[in-house]
């Protein structure tokens, strides 16, 4: 009897979403558009950076060095400066992120086998990008320096670093972005569906009808949770299809590990959504409240910046953030072939979060009933 009542509520919810053209559109178009645009746009990678070169040296070595920069895909447009006084306006007006300054003694020093130096002036307004630019520039200069020393028979460096990147040898940013977006977009969709399903009924007054119906608060919670979970899983499957089929992101792990984690993750997010909407009175409040939860959750998810970089107390608060666990799993399953034994360590905290939120929502509904 109880399951039958829940079942009819589930069917009703699914139909409510499916029959409404606007809801259907919102479920398909924005997530797909975001997947396509953000997977390419949200990149901390550096390409096509504009740089400027100020060369005071007249020798051949400096021209050879500059050629190395011209040929590199990291640097696109190169502006040549004539004097030191042009450096400041070039940086200030963002015509270049970096100015490479070679002084007049450069070739002379090198031919004599003495160390010479190159100055890099970088725009600190974008210190993340310019640090990477400085890294690339240093690598180009070091390689050039080694080649020059070898060619001329000068003593070479006594040790060398050999760098390898595992799981993503060429550091392709898309491979990082798309698995993350699977988690992020799923979270956005499931949070909004849940928060609105209750709030809309509240505003229309049909929620009170639901409360006075023979249904227990527990049954209402289950009946509101299941449809949201089903829709979110469908959405996630669609996104996964695009990730694997269209973007051809390597998928080394097994699908069942990903789906088990995905189901627990979606339950956790839906739990949060349901809890928020059990507190809110109107649709507007529900939308804004889910927003107030979503932005910090995303910012502290480890997507934009590593979690270990945050202050310790904030890392502790972040333990209740479901998406921080799921992002480790999706990247792990996609790129590293993460087995279930390791994924489990990240799954159970999400299950705890789901449990407490659903319990909270249940409690709030019950209180409203009494």
């Amino acid at each position: 009897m109880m399951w039958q009542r829940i079942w009819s509520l589930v069917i009703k919810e699914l139909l409510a979403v499916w029959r409404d053209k606007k809801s259907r559109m919102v479920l398909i178009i924005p997530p797909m558009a975001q997947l396509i645009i953000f997977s390419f746009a949200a990149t901390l990678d550096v390409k096509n950076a504009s740089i400027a070169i100020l060369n005071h040296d007249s020798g051949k070595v400096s021209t050879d060095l500059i050629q190395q920069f011209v040929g590199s895909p990291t640097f696109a447009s190169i502006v040549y400066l004539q004097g030191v006084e042009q450096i400041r306006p070039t940086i200030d007006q963002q015509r270049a992120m970096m100015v490479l300054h070679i002084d007049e003694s450069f070739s002379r020093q090198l031919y004599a086998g003495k160390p010479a130096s190159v100055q890099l002036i970088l725009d600190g307004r974008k210190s993340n990008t310019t640090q990477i630019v400085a890294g690339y520039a240093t690598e180009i200069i070091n390689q050039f320096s080694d080649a020059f020393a070898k060619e001329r028979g000068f003593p070479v460096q006594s040790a060398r670093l050999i760098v390898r990147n595992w799981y993503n040898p060429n550091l392709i940013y898309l491979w990082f972005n798309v698995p993350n977006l699977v988690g992020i977009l799923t979270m956005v969709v499931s949070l909004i569906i849940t928060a609105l399903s209750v709030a809309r009924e509240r505003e229309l007054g049909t929620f009170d009808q639901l409360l006075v119906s023979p249904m227990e608060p527990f049954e209402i919670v289950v009946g509101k949770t299941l449809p949201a979970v089903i829709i979110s899983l469908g959405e996630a499957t669609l996104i996964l299809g695009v990730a694997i089929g269209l973007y051809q992101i390597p998928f080394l792990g097994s699908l069942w590990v990903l789906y088990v984690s995905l189901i627990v993750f979606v339950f956790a997010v839906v739990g949060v959504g349901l809890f928020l909407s059990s507190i809110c009175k109107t649709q507007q409040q529900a939308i804004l409240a889910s927003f107030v939860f979503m932005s910090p959750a995303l910012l502290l998810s480890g997507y934009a910046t590593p979690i270990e970089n945050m202050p310790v107390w904030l890392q502790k608060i972040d333990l209740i953030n479901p998406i921080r666990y799921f992002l480790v799993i999706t990247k792990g399953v996609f790129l590293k072939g993460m087995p279930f034994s390791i994924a489990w360590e990240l799954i159970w905290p999400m299950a705890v979060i789901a449990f407490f939120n659903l319990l909270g929502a249940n409690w709030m509904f019950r209180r409203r009933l009494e």
Partner: protein
Amino acid sequence: MRPIFALIKKEFFQIIRDPSSILISGVLPLILLFIYGFGVSLDLDHLRIGLVMEEESDEAVSFAESLRNSRYFEVTTVRDRRELEDKMLEGKIRGFVVIPAYFSSSWKRPGQEAPLQVITDGSEPNTAQFVQNYVRGAFSVWLQQEKLNQNLKGLPLIQTLPRFWYNEELESRNFLIPGSIAIIMTLIGTLLTALVVAREWERGTMEALMSTPVTIFQLLVGKIVPYFILGMLSMTLCVVVAVWFYQIPLRGSFLVLAMSSASFLLAATLLGLFISTLSKNQFVASQASIVSAFLPAFILSGFIFEISSMPGWIQALTHFIPARYFVSSLQTLFLVGNVWEVILPNTFFILLFALIVLTLTVYKTAKRLDG
């Protein structure tokens, strides 16, 4: 003018009586500023890395020491690299450095380069880049030290001397906090305005207002002004927190900052009004403002992600995002100063955007009345 004041007064009462407007204009900005200040830092300085020491020669020990002394790393030392492979899989370390068993023997042989292996977790490319850069940095400092100590073999002939202007200490907070003002103002200007006006359409009170002797122009002004004032208050709050609490330098003048912000807020509010006029439904309005204003302000504005690294078609798209111009003005005003060559074109494009949206809104609203 009287009807306008009456409308503004009505709107203000609505703002004050609804806790969710206060939540989004007062509490959310503070939460966001707080997170940007403490939680989101692109300066990676607690990177957990592993170190595999396959030998314990003097050179190996001194290199290990220089890695441990680097302020960027928290180093776990082991003897066998297999111990670290699972940790990489779990994402518990960001990479590791291997000092091979034959390191000191090739170090001592003249004309030969002793190899050190650096392995990073490429599943997070940005972090991997920084692990590489910082290991390189620690390595070249160590090499110079060794050269001084042992007077052995050659150093790299060409030294690179980087200088970071305007943000010498390389604090990402210095550009993230100014940029986040653009996000907060987008939320208030676009999302809040769109929601509130959409609610009036949904409940039919907009039509009720239109049937009064109030003109469309008065109606639009009456809607915009309260949220504009709310946004400017919130901007002032952000600047106060940025300058006094986070000690971000404000090298440009406050007046120029206020004027750039006002023009951006105008554009954002008009966009919110336009969205609500089109959708007249809160759910759709919230989705439309998130997709057309909030997410672009976050991702396509150059706030965190560098625009020049994006594919050409997305770069073209960013030109239609007012936040792109505003973020550039904000970062310049805070860190560099009043650089007119940057500020004036940016403000011009923002106002142009506002004008286009205003024209579209007036056109749409007028049509609704006729029909």
